[in-house]
């Protein structure tokens, strides 16, 4: 089997107004992605998805598309998609960084090869450890009354764990979490995500308040480079401190263990530069005594499917902090024909060979930005 063609389709999909997404990094009304299709000489096609978030990961659609349709596509032609080492070495010569693009290419190769062998992607990643994935829902960093109403809206959906975005101002953050606790009662687990938004000195006060509210986990409280200060926070809170923006590579996992900056790390294929890379980091983290949870950069259907397969294949997974496998719920369309594998408090691995999802051609035509 040899790669015959690689193509990239830039898309822009509006977020649903229902959950008005907002974090410490800002407010986003629509998101850009690049869909990848890798076709083999036997006609089989695999799908990949690149999350483009210029303000968060710096990868943007036009450059990504140009790279895929230019030197990268040329270099991949004729390579064996089932040989990841060969493909990986090729990628090393075509670009540096761009972990989300790297992950998308791996995703598409895996989809293609797994379909060919009539296996699921999770099986090719080492086998399935679970077929149900507990998830958490994410509430935006907005006015506490508004967020309270959204939390009330979740009642009856089956959501057992919510993550509240914070990091936009201490008083507002505390009020928002308090409003959510009030709306959902003591039976729902609450975590928060500050997206690097707090300063060390205010974090003490905020964490004390969050402890009173029974917050179970606090994600990326401080700036991604603040390893020592983050280690200091761990003694102040009974919540698990989770590293996200600090954790991109395996050396970052080692650094977490060495500095004691985090109790747990949040991993996902885009940020970690691949599905296999994510699994390696997960197992290393666990071996070093760190908890492992799976985060998100708000994937569409293909990206969410890939995340589901990785989580299914991971021998390690925190029972405390469910995955952020919810991306498709945030968009007008997830661009696949069937997103029913994503539920409101739980997700499944899409059934079938490969990633188990197919593009909805009409949706792609509607949201693509290159025609």
């Amino acid at each position, binding site marked *: 089997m040899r790669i015959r063609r690689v193509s990239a389709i830039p898309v822009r999909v509006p977020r649903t107004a229902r959950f008005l997404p907002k974090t410490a990094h800002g407010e986003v009304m629509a998101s850009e992605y690049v869909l990848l299709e890798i076709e083999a000489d036997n006609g089989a096609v695999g799908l990949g998805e690149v999350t483009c978030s*210029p*303000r*968060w*990961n*710096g990868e*943007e659609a*036009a*450059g*990504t598309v*140009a*790279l895929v349709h*230019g*030197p990268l596509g040329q270099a991949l032609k004729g390579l064996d998609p089932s040989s990841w080492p060969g493909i990986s070495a090729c990628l090393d*010569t*075509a*670009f*540096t*960084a*761009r972990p989300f693009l790297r992950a998308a290419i791996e995703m598409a190769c895996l989809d293609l090869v797994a379909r060919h062998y009539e296996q699921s992607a999770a099986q090719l990643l080492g086998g399935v450890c679970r077929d149900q994935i507990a998830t958490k829902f994410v509430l935006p960093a907005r006015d506490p009354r508004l967020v309270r109403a959204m939390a009330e809206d979740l009642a009856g959906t089956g959501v057992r764990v919510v993550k509240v975005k914070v990091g936009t101002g201490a008083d507002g953050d505390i009020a928002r979490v308090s409003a959510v606790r009030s709306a959902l009662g003591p039976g729902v687990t609450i975590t928060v995500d500050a997206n690097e938004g707090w300063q060390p000195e205010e974090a003490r006060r905020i964490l004390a308040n969050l402890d009173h509210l029974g917050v179970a986990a606090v994600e990326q409280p401080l700036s991604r*480079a603040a390893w020592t200060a983050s280690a200091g926070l761990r003694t102040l809170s009974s919540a698990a401190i989770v590293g996200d923006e600090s954790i991109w*590579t395996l*050396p970052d996992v080692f650094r977490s263990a060495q500095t004691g900056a985090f109790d747990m790390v949040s991993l996902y294929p885009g940020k970690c530069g691949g599905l296999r890379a994510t699994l390696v980091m997960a197992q290393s983290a666990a071996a070093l005594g760190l908890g492992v949870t799976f985060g998100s950069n708000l994937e569409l259907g293909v990206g969410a499917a890939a995340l589901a397969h990785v989580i299914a294949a991971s021998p390690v997974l925190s029972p405390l902090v469910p995955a952020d496998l919810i991306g498709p719920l945030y968009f007008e369309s997830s661009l696949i024909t069937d997103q029913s594998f994503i539920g409101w408090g739980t997700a499944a691995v899409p059934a079938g060979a490969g990633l188990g999802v197919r593009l909805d051609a009409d949706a792609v035509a509607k949201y693509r930005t290159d025609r």
Partner: protein
Amino acid sequence: MKITDIETIPVVVPLSPERMIRGARGAHDRSPFLIVRVHTDEGLAGLGEVSCTPRWSGEDAVTARHVCDAYLKPSLLGQDPADVERLSGVMGQAIVGHHFTKAAVEMALWDLLGKALAVPVYRLLGGQIRPGARTKFSVTAAEPSRSAAVARWACEQGFTAMKVKVGTSLPDDVARVAAVRDAIGADVRLGVDANGGWTRATAAAAVAPLAAAQVAFIEQPVPARDLPGMADVRHRSSVPVVADESVGVPEDAQDVVQAAAADVLSVYVGMAGGIGAARRVAAVASSAGAGWTIGSNLELGIGLAAHIHLAVSTPGLDDERVPCDIISTFYYDDDLLVQPLPIRAGWAQPPTGPGLGVEIDEDKLAHYRSDD
């Protein structure tokens, strides 16, 4: 004064075939860069250069152009270019990463400020504290006799310091270094640059044979992220270890000095994200007692000018132990400038005109532009 436009011109300038560089990160035979012009309502224009090589900088001209058009220009239109520091922050908010691209716009802002005030950029950075910078040549990785011939050529041009690319196979690397040392004699200062291509074991094994060839410094022996590995080589070696790919933005410099991973840090305006950021990298190095020097991504004239202004105005330049790589003029047969920079073998001085002190030759720009 207000910014009215950010114009981008992709160019491809070929290297002189005899002197193209091959190292552990691949071969560089042509430079597909992006020239940036920041236009204002007062008729002044600032010049910048995105010295983007996908395999080394991770940036490319197509992406750089799009980043300028879609993210940087909208955030800078109507702003006063004199607010260089503030506008650097604005660009940082607009998009993450893309340091070489942002650096091009930032250096153009310095150029504009200098032109508006009729002073050279080094004067804006605090004044000239040294007359110029010592420079070294970079000898490509090739089979020994070929590298030796290139090294000999560099001596003939007048270079008294150089580095040779290593970092693939140790026996080949050692043979190349020996051949180069043989060709240049004992008086030329000679270092090696592995571009992160050795493992820790190979780097450890390299120390003795390199010492036998009187190698005076070892640049980036192990991969960029392996700071403990860099520190390890430093402990084994009695000559300075230089961090190059390990250092981009000031936070990287902090990591390097905290890990005691290098004696000298290699600073780039592009990798840092601007002249201002590059000065902060230099300051981190100096405050930790480490030296710093200037690296090369084979910048064209505008990028080189930025490096020279940085080198002559910023404290702590360690150009005696590790001379700067301000050498691109020896690799290209042609450049985009009306007047060549005052660079000769082994020495670089700043141009004295206002701003960066360079002017684009429009005919050459038209000749080398790649978007028509």
